[in-house]
C-alpha cells in the first residue's frame, strides 16, 4: 500500500515538474495550489475549469470576428486577446499567454492571416493544457484514494 502511494506521488511530482519545464505552467499555478486549502480542496480544479470555459468562449467570439475577410472587427479581436491574456495569467497558463502576445501584435497591424494563425495556436494550446491538467488531477485523485497526500512540489 505504501509503495503504491509513494509511486503515485513520485509520478505526480515528475509530471507536474515536467509541465513547468515544458512551459505549460508558470509560478502562478503554484500560487493557485498554495491558495487551495482544506476548506476548498477543489479550488484549483474549479479555477482551471473556469479558465478553460472562458477560453472556449473567447476563441469562439474572435473566430467569428475574424471570419469575414473584408469585415474584421479588430477592436473586438483585440479585446478578446486582452481578456484571454488576463485569464491565462490567472492560472499560470504560460504557453497560452505567450501566444496572446504574438496575437496582439498581429491585431495591432490588422494582420488577419496572422491573427487566424494565432487563433489556431491559442486554441491548440489551451486544449493541450486542459488535457495535461486533467491527467494531473486524475493522478491527484488516485493518490488520495490510495490514502496518500498530494505532495507539495517546489518548482524552481
Amino acid at each position, binding site marked *: 500500500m505504501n509503495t503504491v502511494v509513494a509511486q503515485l506521488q513520485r509520478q505526480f511530482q515528475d509530471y507536474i515538474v515536467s509541465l513547468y519545464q515544458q512551459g505549460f505552467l508558470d509560478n502562478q499555478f503554484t500560487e493557485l495550489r498554495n491558495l487551495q486549502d482544506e476548506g476548498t480542496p477543489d479550488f484549483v480544479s474549479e479555477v482551471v475549469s473556469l479558465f478553460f470555459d472562458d477560453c472556449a468562449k473567447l476563441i469562439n467570439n474572435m473566430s467569428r470576428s475574424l471570419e469575414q475577410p473584408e469585415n474584421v472587427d479588430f477592436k473586438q479581436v483585440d*479585446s478578446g486577446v486582452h481578456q484571454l491574456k*488576463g485569464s491565462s495569467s*490567472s492560472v499560470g497558463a504560460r504557453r497560452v499567454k505567450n501566444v496572446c502576445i504574438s496575437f496582439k501584435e498581429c491585431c495591432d497591424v490588422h494582420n488577419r492571416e496572422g491573427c487566424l494563425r494565432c487563433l489556431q495556436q491559442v486554441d491548440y494550446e489551451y486544449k493541450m493544457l486542459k488535457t495535461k491538467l486533467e491527467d494531473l488531477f486524475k493522478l491527484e485523485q488516485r493518490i488520495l484514494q490510495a490514502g496518500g497526500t498530494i505532495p507539495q512540489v517546489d518548482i524552481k
Partner: protein
Amino acid sequence: MEKGFSPVGLRVLVVDDDPTWLKILEKMLKKCSYEVTTCGLAREALRLLRERKDGYDIVISDVNMPDMDGFKLLEHVGLELDLPVIMMSVDGETSRVMKGVQHGACDYLLKPIRMKELKIIWQHVLRKKLQEVRDIEGCCYEGGADWMTRNDEAFLGGGEDVSFGKKRKDFDFEKKLLLHDENDPSSSSSKKARVVWSFELHQKFVNAVNQIGCDHKAGPKKILDLMNVPWLTRENVASHLQKYRLYLSRLEKGKELKCYSGGAKNMDSPQKDAEMNLGSSYAFSGGNSVIETDPKPLASASVSDPSSDVHMLPKAKKTRIGFDPSISSGAFESLLPWNDVPDPLESKPPILYDESFLQQQQTLPSQSSYVANSATSLMEKEMKKPSYESSSAGGSRVNADEFLKSPNVILQDLDLSASSEKLQEFSSNVTNNTESTLRSLNWEFQESHPSGALDNDLDLSWLQGERFLANTGFQNFQFQDYSSSPSLLSELPPHLWFGNERLPDPDEYSLMVDQGLFIS
C-alpha cells in the same frame, strides 16, 4: 503570513469581468480575512455600492470591463461614494497606470496579483479616512497638514509600498524636524532658552498686559518692555501671550460647555469664526491658521461632545489616535503600533495638555495625531502592539505617578474646594488682578470639570505646570504638530500654569471678562 498584517473584516468589493480572476481574488482576499463581495459587471458594482452606501470599505476593479470602462467606474465611485479604489490590469503600460492615477485610483495592481499586494490594501482605506478627517476639520496649519499628509503616506508606504518611497524621505526630514523641536527647543534655530513661567513672571506679564489695556493692541514687544525682565525675550512673551489669549478666549466660551476640555469655540476678539465651531466630533476646531502672526485661539483643541469622558493618554506630544470605530470594529485596533512610540519629550507636564486634547482625539475620528506617532513607530517597527486603549490607560497612570513625585515644581498652597485632594493642597495668596482673573478662570475650570479623573489629571499637570511650559517649545511646535496643539495649554486654567490660585467667585468671572482681558 507574519509580515502581512491585514485587519479582519475589511469590506472589499471586487469587480472583474474575468470569472477566473474573480474567483481567485475572492479566495485571496478571504485569506486576508477580508469580507469579500464579487461582481462581474461594473454597473452591477455601482448598483451594489449605491444600495449600501456604507457597505464597503474599498473597491478593487479591473480596468477593462465590457459594460463600462474601469476608469469610468473609478470616477463614479470616487465622486459619489468617496471610497478608495484600486485598479487592476494585466496591462502595465505607463499611460494606463497614469490614467488610473489621474482618475483617482489609490493604486494600480498588475496581474497576476500577489497576496502581499492584497494584504496592504487596508492602508488605502486608512489613508483615505485620514484625509477625510483632515478635510473635515478644515485644518490648515501651515506645514502641519502637509506634514501630516506626507507622513500618512510615508507611514502607509512603510515597508511594502514602493510608490510612497519618495514621500518617505520628506517624512523623515519632517520627523527629524519635529522631534528635534520637541526634544530640544532651544537648539532649534527659532527657539530661545527655555522659560519657566513662574507665577511671578506671569504676574508681571499680566500686569504689563493690563497696563497696556484692552484698547491698544498688546504686542509682545510692548509687554516685554513693561515687564522689564532682562533675560526674557520677545519670543518668550509672544508665545506666552498666545497661550494666554487662547486661554482667555476659550474660557469665555468654555462656560457654555459642560466639558472643560470640550473646547472653547473660537471667540477671539470680534470674530467668532463659525468655521471653528465644528461642534462635536472634531478634534480640532478648525480654521486655525498660523498663530504666529495673529494668534487666534487654536481651536481649542477639542470641541467635542461634552459628555466625552476625560481619559487621557499620557504620551506627551504624540497624541494617540482615536481610531474611528467605523473604520473597522476592532479590526484596526491592533493596527496601532503607535502606543509604542517613545515619548520624545522627557518632561511629563505636556501630558495634561495633550491629555485633554487626546481625550478628544479618542472619541473622534481624527487621526491626525496618529500620524505623528505612526510615522515614527512604523518606520521603525512592525505593528504588533496591543490595543490602543490599554496602553494608553496604562500610560496615563504611570505618568500620574511620576508627576506626583516631581520635586521640581514650586507649589503654593491653593485653597480650592475642588473635589480633587491635590488641588486642595494649594492655597492662594495672590491679591491682585491676576488673581481675580485666574480665580475666575479657576472657577470656570472647576465648574466644567467635576470629574475627579480630570481633576487629577489636571492636577498633575499643574504640578508640572512650570516645567511644562519650560520644556515645550511652542513656537514652532504648535505649528508643526497637529496633535499637540498648544492651545491645549491655554485650556488649562492659569493656576495650573502658574501655580496657585484660589477658586474665584462666579461673579468675578463675568467681571473678569468685562475687564477687557482680552487682548486683541
